[in-house]
């Protein structure tokens, strides 16, 4: 399939080149076209804003947003060349694909900061009733994940580590989908989970589960999601990649200003929320969705800065858990030449 698509693309490119040659002179200014992979989450708002407000066009890019159901297929689509740029959590799949020379991280997006409302640790009512009141009580309990090697897995082990017990002493339950995890947590089939604040708060408020801590207390400056692209784009199409990052950063800045720092007033919040609602919680009416969108807004890294320390820490954890080869290196994973790192 990958071959076919590549071949298809090659043919298309050839045809386009021929067409351009024939029509030489008629076309003076050509925009570069890119595909941007997105998930329908508030944390992907920078892409929605950059697209809707025309920031990609300003940067000379004809962008197309391609929605995905999960992070892993998006990473594979970038590896296969179907998608040019994407934003997703650092996962085992991402590292393995980077090791194979398919993709590179070029910037940061969602991040945890102390003092800013971040991801929460939740426990089921049943577990709470049986005495799980703080993270140190999670020893010997079950913890919900989407998949082995996902960010949830990383959070669970970091919590365990800081509380002084091995991650082997938590029973990890890969349940594939966030919806399934929520169901399992509500019915008490799993004891604990960690998740973004607006979902956590909603569960806490509705009495479905109890918040017992903050992830930020266990992981310093957690770089949750990163901006990434194919190795080819990162090394051979530097101008294109810079233009993309510039447009994306503009989206980030607007998102942070309006939704996090609330610098531009209530009407700007409302119009931006409406813009985001075109992509997120589309099945709910605006009135219902607006609260979730606003509550779910977490700071994105200004200018796509990257917390390289956090990325390194995550990479080391993946290696220690034998989820990626021990030879995996940060050089293969991150191209540090695009954004500021720290």
């Amino acid at each position, binding site marked *: 399939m990958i071959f076919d698509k590549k071949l298809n693309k090659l043919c298309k490119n050839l045809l386009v080149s021929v067409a351009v040659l024939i029509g030489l002179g008629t076309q003076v200014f050509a925009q570069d076209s890119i595909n941007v992979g997105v998930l329908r989450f508030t944390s992907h708002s920078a892409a929605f804003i950059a697209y809707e407000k025309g920031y990609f066009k300003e940067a000379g890019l004809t962008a197309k947003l391609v929605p995905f159901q999960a992070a892993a297929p998006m990473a594979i689509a970038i590896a296969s060349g179907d998608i040019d740029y994407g934003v997703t959590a650092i996962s085992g799949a991402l590292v393995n694909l980077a090791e194979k020379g398919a993709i590179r991280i070029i910037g940061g997006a969602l991040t945890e900061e102390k003092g800013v409302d971040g991801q929460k640790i939740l426990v089921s009512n049943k577990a709470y009733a049986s005495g799980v009141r703080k993270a140190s009580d999670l020893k010997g309990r079950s913890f919900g994940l989407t998949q082995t090697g996902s960010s949830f897995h990383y959070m669970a082990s970091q919590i365990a580590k800081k509380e002084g017990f091995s991650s082997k002493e938590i029973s990890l339950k890969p349940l594939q989908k966030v919806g*399934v995890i929520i169901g399992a947590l509500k019915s008490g089939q799993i004891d604990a989970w960690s998740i973004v604040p607006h979902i956590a708060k909603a569960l806490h408020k509705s009495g479905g589960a109890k918040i017992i801590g903050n992830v930020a207390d266990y992981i310093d400056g957690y770089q949750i999601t990163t901006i990434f692209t194919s190795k080819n784009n990162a090394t051979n199409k530097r101008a294109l990649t810079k233009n993309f990052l510039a447009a994306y950063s503009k989206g980030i800045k607007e998102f942070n200003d309006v939704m996090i720092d609330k610098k531009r007033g209530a009407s700007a919040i409302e119009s931006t929320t409406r813009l985001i609602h075109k992509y997120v919680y589309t099945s709910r009416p605006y009135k219902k969705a607006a609260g979730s969108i606003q509550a779910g807004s977490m700071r994105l890294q200004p200018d796509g800065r990257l917390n390289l320390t956090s990325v390194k820490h995550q990479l080391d954890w993946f290696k220690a858990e034998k989820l990626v080869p021990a030879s995996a290196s940060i050089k293969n994973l991150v191209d540090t030449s695009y954004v500021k790192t720290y």
Partner: protein
Amino acid sequence: MGKKKYDYKPVPFRGSGFQFKNNYWISPVVFIIFLILWHVGTTIGFISNLVLPKPAEVLIAFHDLYVTGDLYLHVGASLKRLILGWTLGTFFGIILGFSIGLFSLVRAGLAPIVAAIFPVPKIALLPLFIIWFGIGELSKVNIILFGTLFPTIIAVYGAIDNVDRSLIRMGQSFNLSWFSITRKIVFPASLPAILSNFRITAAIAIILIVAAELIAAEKGIGAYVQMAGSLFAIDRLLAGIIILSCLGLIANWLIGFAEKKLLKWRNL
């Protein structure tokens, strides 16, 4: 025009082809050529490392599984679910199949329900199974149980429908009891079809173990394959798939053995 000359020719043989000869050496040779092509292709980069790992990498993944002892944990966990689910599914399938095959009242009541549920992909029922049976072993075993139950029911009562009526007549003409006819005529007559159905349900069980272990399985070959897939660790993915197919081969061999023992009246 001289004397007519006759051509004497042997009658050409036209009966070749369309029959299978035993070429035992072909399949290993094909397999070795396949391995060589795979190795060369991945080594010189003709086959991208995104598409296929090197054969050696798959071997290393196996080795890792073996030395860490994970192989036994994964295979053990899956085997437990497979054997329990398949055995129970087959057991209830045979009982229900016999009931439908022998009692018209049961047939009228159950056969339509069985026919309605049979084609439902059991994977689609996964969320329901979690609600009914939780995320523990019960839902995993039950997926395999349900997956093997329905094909077994249908195969068994189909087999009973196909039992030679004249043999049953014969039994009746000698005043054999209903129980004797069922046990000594109907059951052995349907046994070949039931056993060949075992091959199909064993394959179904192995297909379903991967789906069953989607949910909250820390150990198991299905969980291992899932994990490898979500990590995009294709060397481990292939190692897991090879283990699954070995399980299938072993099951097939065991059923072949059972057929040889139980149906020795059939083969020469």
